[in-house]
């Protein structure tokens, strides 16, 4: 079975701990994205799975076998590198064929496999060219082809799309996803781009400072982030985070003081178990409903900068006490710079985070 299991994996580099007690299970055919900012340990984790780094503690189990002490060539894994790592002196065809040498296939079988993969990734026109004579997108596809031509235990991708321009990324996202779907292998993709993660992954593991903060489906991490960091990392424009004083609940509403203004906001039922004190309220830009009426359950603000985005409009607003707000409304709602806004929210879209940054949720 093509699976990956990391249990309590930790990696120290001298006095610095890059990966802290990471546990992860990837099942056959599942695509898990390691997502996070630079330096969060996602690449190190990937390299530990590959065998290019050795875990200081914890277990690495691939396809049911403990692989801690095995070298990369003994693990039967395929990896697509951030810099592609195409062999410069070999043609595209030879590059793709390279990992097959050790399998001892006869020439015909090998050639057939290469041809099949080349067709799948539209590399037929460049098969006899050298890597420095093909485009960036083609290089990326060759790197993928080299991985896919094998039958490895799992696939590992290190920032596969980071060097492509925006258009190409879109095309390649879809292409990689469709290639992977047919193959039923455990796949781990490392990326810092949330859009990539949201579109390609079955589950996303968001990492910060060597720790996985949340691992869940793309929808989960978007709609129900478990920590402040995840909430602010996922979603563009970024979620609005407001510090507030929590004052207890009234039915389905919580009483908060935000920015000096007392506000009643519809919240998740679990909030009533929260102790009074300082909290952070997170509201996504699209969760605001401008309500001309004002009232106790709205947040007041003044629009400062209007950015038309086509079907939607992004409004940069500011509360009376100076906090920034980002509001996204459908373009039918016309707002001008300087307009006063009263913003209502939806309970399902209002997240409350306690003093330690954990989400308060049922």
């Amino acid at each position: 079975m093509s699976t990956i299991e990391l249990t309590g994996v930790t990696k120290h580099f001298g006095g610095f701990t890059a990966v802290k007690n990471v546990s992860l299970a990837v099942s056959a055919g599942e695509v898990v994205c390691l997502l996070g900012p630079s330096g969060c340990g996602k690449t190190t984790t990937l390299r530990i799975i590959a065998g290019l780094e050795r875990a200081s503690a914890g277990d690495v189990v691939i396809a049911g076998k403990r692989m801690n002490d095995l070298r990369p060539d003994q693990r039967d894994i395929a990896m697509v590198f951030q810099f592609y790592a195409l062999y410069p002196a070999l043609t595209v065809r030879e590059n793709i064929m390279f990992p097959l040498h050790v399998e001892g296939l006869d020439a015909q079988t090998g050639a057939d496999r290469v041809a099949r993969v080349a067709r799948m990734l539209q590399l037929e026109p460049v098969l006899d060219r050298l890597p420095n004579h093909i485009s960036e997108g083609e290089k990326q596809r060759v790197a993928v082809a080299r991985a896919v031509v094998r039958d490895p235990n799992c696939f590992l991708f290190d920032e596969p799309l980071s060097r492509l321009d925006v258009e190409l990324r879109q095309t390649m996202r879809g292409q990689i996803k469709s290639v992977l779907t047919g193959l039923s292998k455990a796949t781990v993709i490392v990326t810092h781009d949330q859009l990539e993660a949201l579109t390609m992954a079955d589950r996303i593991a968001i990492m910060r400072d060597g720790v996985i903060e949340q691992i869940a489906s793309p929808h989960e991490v978007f709609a129900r982030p478990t920590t402040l960091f995840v909430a602010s990392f996922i979603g563009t424009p970024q979620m609005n985070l407001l510090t507030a004083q929590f004052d207890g609940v009234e039915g389905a509403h919580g009483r908060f003081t935000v920015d000096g203004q007392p506000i009643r906001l519809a919240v998740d039922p679990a909030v009533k178990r929260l102790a009074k004190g300082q909290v952070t309220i997170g509201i996504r830009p699209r969760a605001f409903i401008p309500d001309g009426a004002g009232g106790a359950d709205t947040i007041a603000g003044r629009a400062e900068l209007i950015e038309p985005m086509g079907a939607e409009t992004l409004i940069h607003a500011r509360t009376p006490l100076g906090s920034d707000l980002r509001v996204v409304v459908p373009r039918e709602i016309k707002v001008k710079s300087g307009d006063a806004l009263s913003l209502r929210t939806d309970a399902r879209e209002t997240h409350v985070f306690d003093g330690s940054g954990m989400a308060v949720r049922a």
Partner: protein
Amino acid sequence: MTTTTDIPQSVPFFQRVIALRWDNWQGALIVFVIGMALAIASLPPQVSFWASSALAALFAVTLIANAWGKYIGGLLVTPALTLLFLMNVFPLVWSFGLSFFSYKANRARAPTWVGLDNYAKVLGDPDVWDRLHNTIILVIMTVSLQMVVGFLLALLFSKQFPLRRYLLILVLTPMMLSFVAVGAFFRYYYDPTFGLLSQAVRVFTGQPFILMNTVWGSRIGIVFADAWMWSPFVMLLVLAGLVSVPKYLYEAAAIDRVSGWRQFWSITFPYIRGLMLLALLFRTIEAFKLFDLVFLLTNGGPGTATETIALRVYRIAFENNKTSESTALAYILLFTVIVLTNLYLYFANRRAREAPAS
């Protein structure tokens, strides 16, 4: 004489050449060559030298004037080109001219034209072919040894390890010794009585070991000393190549489960191929010019077994005082070197198209 505008290309060649302009370097070149030939033929060497120099200077000035239109570039490049011209090109051309004359430096007689006689004499001299034979044997032996040893040393130093800096310096020291010291001390090492080599062999055979009195012995002696001195040079070049291979290529190869041997041929070798060819070229050319070490170690001996072509030229010029004959021979040597260089450049250019992009 104006320099503000170039002569348009449409003006016929002949007219361009005789135009009285400062940047008419083609005209100046013709004047220089003809004038120098006349001067050498008719004037005693001291005077012909100065006459030729004057004409050369004129030629150089026109070259500079030609480049002056490009202003900064010409200005920057001029001092270097002038020096090179004075000390390299000019003597070369002058001696090339001289090789067609009969001239002996220790006689005050003016040179007489002999055309290709010197060349014929040199090419027909069996001694010369014998020396060429010597030289080629020495070149093949020493260059092969240097390439192998240099390559192995480079492999050794291709990774970072503790104390690497200091050990590297140790290995580079042979290059830094003067030829005199190396020549003298290797004679000392090879000495049958108190040389280290003989003493080491004596431990096994009980007999003193005489290396330098046989033809092949002395050849090996020279080759060993020369290769010892210059293998570090090859090492430096190959090391530069080894170090430039991106590490992630080896990581990818490990993941692709590629064997070490194949890794070397497909990944490492393309990176060092160009540099090895370069090392090969440099060392081969230097080996052809082998003089200092042979002069000091064996002085061509035993007999003339290890006399190289360069040494022969020296002998003819300074011991037999057949100055112009020696220049003829020297030119043949130069010609060989140029042919080799061009061969190398041909191969290198072909490879450059296939070389790995950085």
